[in-house]
C-alpha cells in the first residue's frame, strides 16, 4: 500500500476507549496500513507509523530529520510557536555537535550517578507519601506524588531551591501544552522561565555548587570552551520538558495499570525483585504515551513496503509499536517478568532519551516505596472511570484516586 491510497484521513491523536487501553485502530493500522494518513491538531497532514520495525528503523535513520521547522513540515499544534517541538532544543544540531553536547550532559546522567541519587529520591517519595497519608484516603496519587516528585528531582539537579518548585511545575505544564493554554500564557511562562534561569545561571557562575549547571560550566571551562547562557537555558528547559511531565504521568499510568488488575500489585508484593522488569513492562504497555516522535523526511525513503515521499512529516507511534505482536509475544498481556523488554518508550538510536536511567530510577523508587509503605493500595474508582489528560504532548491520567 502506498501512502495516499487511503481515502480516509484519521484525526490524530486517535481517541481511545478508556484511559489505560489503546485505540482499537492501532491493531488494524499495524496490520493493514502501517503508514497511515493522519490530520494533526494544527490541521496539517502527517504519516503515522504503527509497526515496531518501522518505528525502530525511522528513529535510527538520519534521513528522517528532527528538522521540523522546514517550510513544508507539518505543524504539530495550532499554537504559533508549535510548543515543545519548535523550541531551541528542537533545533537540530549536526551529528558531531549533538554527540559533543550529549556526552557533556550524559556524563551527569550515568546509571551509577542515577543509582546514587536513589536514596534521595526514595526520601522525597517517603515525604510525599507521608503527606498523602496525612491528608487521608481517598487521595489523588497524581497530585500528591506523581506530579511533584519529578519536579523536585529536577530542581535539585539544577540547584533550584525548594521554595521555587511550584513555579517550575507551572512552567513545565505550560511548555508542553498542545491546546490547553493560550499562546499568550505559553509566551509568558517561557519568558518567566528564561528570566528566572538567566538569573539562576548568573548566580551559579558566581558561586558554583554541586549541581548540573555548575558541572556543565566547569566541564566546558576545563575543555577551554565557554558554556553559553543559551546552551544552559535550553538544556535546563529540555530537562524540565523531557523529565517532568513524562515521568509524572508515567508514575500515574504505571500505578494505575498495576492497580487496575490488582493481581499485578499482589504479584509485586509477593516478589519485590520484579520491580525492575515491572517498570519496563509498564513503559511498554503505556497506551497513552502522548503525541509520538515526529520526524521530517528530506528525501524519498522506504518504510517497510511503502515509499514515503520527501517533505513528509512522519509521526512514530511509540505506543502502537510497543504492542506489535511481531515484536512481543502476547503483546497485549502485561507480563511483569518480561525480559528482555526491548520497548521503544525512550526512543532508540543516537537521540534516544538521555534521562532514561533517571526515569527508570524514579519509577523503581516510587514503586518500591509504595509497595513498602502502602501494601493495601487500591483504586478508589473503577479503572474504566479513569480519565486521560488532554491537550498535552505527553499523555497521562487526569487524576488517580486511590485508597490504602
Amino acid at each position, binding site marked *: 500500500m502506498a501512502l495516499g491510497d487511503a481515502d480516509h484521513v484519521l484525526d490524530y491523536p486517535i481517541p481511545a476507549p478508556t484511559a489505560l487501553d489503546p485505540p482499537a485502530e492501532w491493531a488494524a493500522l499495524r496490520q493493514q496500513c502501517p503508514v497511515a494518513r493522519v490530520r494533526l491538531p494544527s490541521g496539517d497532514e502527517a504519516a503515522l507509523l504503527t509497526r515496531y520495525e518501522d518505528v525502530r528503523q525511522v528513529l535510527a535513520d538520519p534521513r528522517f530529520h528532527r528538522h521540523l521547522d522546514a517550510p513544508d513540515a507539518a505543524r504539530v499544534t495550532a499554537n504559533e510557536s508549535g510548543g515543545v517541538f519548535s523550541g531551541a532544543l528542537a533545533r537540530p544540531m549536526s551529528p558531531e555537535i549533538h554527540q559533543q553536547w550529549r556526552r557533556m550532559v550524559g556524563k551527569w546522567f550515568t546509571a551509577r550517578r542515577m*543509582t546514587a541519587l536513589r536514596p534521595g529520591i526514595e526520601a522525597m517519595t517517603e515525604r510525599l507519601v507521608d503527606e498523602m497519608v496525612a491528608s487521608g484516603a481517598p487521595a489523588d496519587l497524581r497530585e500528591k506524588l506523581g506530579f511533584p516528585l519529578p519536579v523536585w528531582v529536577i530542581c535539585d539537579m539544577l540547584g533550584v531551591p525548594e521554595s521555587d518548585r511550584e513555579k517550575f511545575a507551572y512552567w513545565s505544564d505550560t511548555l508542553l501544552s498542545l491546546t490547553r493554554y493560550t499562546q499568550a500564557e505559553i509566551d509568558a511562562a517561557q519568558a518567566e522561565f528564561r528570566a528566572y534561569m538567566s538569573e539562576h545561571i548568573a548566580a551559579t557562575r558566581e558561586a558554583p555548587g554541586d549541581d548540573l549547571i555548575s558541572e556543565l560550566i566547569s566541564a566546558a571551562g576545563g575543555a577551554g570552551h565557554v558554556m553559553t547562557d543559551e546552551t544552559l537555558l535550553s538544556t535546563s528547559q529540555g530537562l524540565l520538558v523531557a523529565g517532568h511531565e513524562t515521568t509524572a504521568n508515567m508514575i500515574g499510568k504505571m500505578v494505575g495499570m498495576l492497580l487496575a488488575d490488582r493481581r499485578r500489585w499482589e504479584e509485586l508484593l509477593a516478589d519485590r525483585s520484579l520491580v525492575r522488569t515491572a517498570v519496563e513492562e509498564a513503559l511498554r504497555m503505556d497506551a497513552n504515551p502522548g503525541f509520538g516522535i515526529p520526524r521530517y523526511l528530506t528525501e524519498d525513503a522506504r518504510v517497510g513496503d511503502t515509499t514515503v515521499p520527501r517533505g513528509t512529516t512522519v509521526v512514530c507511534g511509540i505506543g502502537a509499536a510497543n504492542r506489535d505482536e511481531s515484536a512481543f509475544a502476547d503483546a497485549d498481556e502485561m507480563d511483569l517478568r518480561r525480559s528482555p523488554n526491548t520497548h521503544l518508550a525512550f526512543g532508540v538510536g543516537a*537521540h*534516544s532519551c538521555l534521562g532514561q536511567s533517571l526515569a527508570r530510577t524514579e519509577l523503581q523508587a516510587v514503586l518500591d516505596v509504595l509497595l513498602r509503605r502502602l501494601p493495601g493500595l487500591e483504586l478508589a474508582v473503577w479503572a474504566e472511570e479513569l480519565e486521560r489528560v488532554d491537550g498535552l504532548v505527553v499523555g497521562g491520567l487526569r487524576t488517580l484516586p486511590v485508597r490504602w
Partner: protein
Amino acid sequence: MKITVDQDKCCGAGSCVLAAPDVFDQRDEDGVVVLLDPEPAEHLRAAVREAADVCPTAAIALTERD
C-alpha cells in the same frame, strides 16, 4: 561468551549498567560504555544478553562460543 562494545555508537543511556552492573560501566567524563568483563561468568550471561538486547544504539555485540 565474548562481549565487544562500540564506544563510537554508544549514546550513554546506561541501560547496560542498570541490567548488568558487574559487566558494564560508563566513563566518568562522558558516560560512554566501559566493558569491565569481556568474558563474563555463566551466572551473569542472562543479564548481559538483556543488556545487549535493550541497548538503544546496538553498541554491544556478543559471540556465544561455549
